């Protein structure tokens, strides 16, 4: 393991960088898109609710790999030339946004409806009430599940390896085939993943406990 670590340090760090970069980009955009569709789902307008529902159900029930491969294979063929990293990150964003939408919707619905009514009664518009009163309270409730989504995101970003995204998992394969030391290569890369995900998951468990009491 030490041999792999010292000889392939630069590849490993590069892989870690790409994994983190893709996870963070996907987290930011999927939170924005997810929140948007979550709001669609609680709007009084029926058509918007249906659109929100379809988006969420559609992308929650299709494998991430299928979505990522779709962008990797089809976009360069018909639309524009994009690299594996971009295609993978787009796939990751869309897939995760449907899970985040579901989480945010649950958060919004757990906020007492009286909050919205009160805000409206005090002269706020629907959007003002939503963005200034309801959403901040909803986000406070859903911080632990959102954190868990981020952990999933880091793990799921390993599909970038399928689309030549140069992430940790991709580097794991190339190191394994270069060094011919399969077990140790995968163990080292496993440790790299754990360094990100394990502390996060303990912190989220701690947060959940603190919020529950």
């Amino acid at each position: 393991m030490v041999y792999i670590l010292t000889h392939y340090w630069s590849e490993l760090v590069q892989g870690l960088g790409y994994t983190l970069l893709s996870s963070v980009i996907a987290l930011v955009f999927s939170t924005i898109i997810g929140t948007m569709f979550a709001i669609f789902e609680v709007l009084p307008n029926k058509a918007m609710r249906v659109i929100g529902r379809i988006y969420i159900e559609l992308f929650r029930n299709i494998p991430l790999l299928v979505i990522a491969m779709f962008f990797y294979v089809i976009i360069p063929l018909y639309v524009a030339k994009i690299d594996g990293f971009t295609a993978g990150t787009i796939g990751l964003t869309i897939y995760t946004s449907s899970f985040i939408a579901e989480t945010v919707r649950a958060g919004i619905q757990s906020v007492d409806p009286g909050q919205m009514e009160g805000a409206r009664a005090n002269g706020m518009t629907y959007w003002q009430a939503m963005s200034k009163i309801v959403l901040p309270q909803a986000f406070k409730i859903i911080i632990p599940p959102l954190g868990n989504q981020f952990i999933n995101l880091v793990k799921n970003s390993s599909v970038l390896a399928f689309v030549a995204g140069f992430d940790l998992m991709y580097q794991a394969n190339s190191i394994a085939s270069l060094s011919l030391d399969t077990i140790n290569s995968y163990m080292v890369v496993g440790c790299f993943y754990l360094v990100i995900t394990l502390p996060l998951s303990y912190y989220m468990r701690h947060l959940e406990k603190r919020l529950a009491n």
Partner: protein
Amino acid sequence: MQNFIQAYSWVNIRFLLEGLWVTVEVSVVSIIASFIIGSVLGVLRYVKIKYLSAVVGFVVDIVRNLPLILIIFFTYFGLPHLGFKPGILFATILAMTIFESAMLAEIVRSGILAVDYGQMEGARANGMTYVQALWHIIFPQAIKKTIPTIVSQFISLIKDTSLATIIVLPELLNHAQIIYGQNSAYIIPMFIMVALMYFIICYALSVLSRILDKKLA
């Protein structure tokens, strides 16, 4: 349009369905195995046997926080170096079972924790042993409480079987790739069909879990 009609010829559809069958096979075996192992691990983690529970908890946390692809690679490419060479199908099922058992262990444990402690006290006061109370009173309630979470975990399992295409398991996505590899005009029809097949299975399961949840609640 011509592409779609040609792409969905009976030969292609049958080839996709063969892939779907492998996906279903892997999923069903892994679901059953991981439900049993996950429940045992979850209970072990809950009952606090000295050392054993701590070790189980540690291993479960490690496995849960690794990407599934890494575990698939490890079972397929890593295990042969340790002197055990599983076939593709077995390696996939092994990897899925290890990963999903860890996920389920955590769900089952949280389900048990959510059952009112008075249930255990009541069962013990009525003369049940600790193990009897756990098995007859606590465990069924814990499962009932966590059905939606467990089913959504199984839905992820079904979706995640697509990852095994990287070790060339002849499942749905792999068969689709073989078809569109022969003719690039089939790419879009194949992706739509594959997405549809996964969607139907996973969506049906999620509807089923909602019905089950309402009936049991």
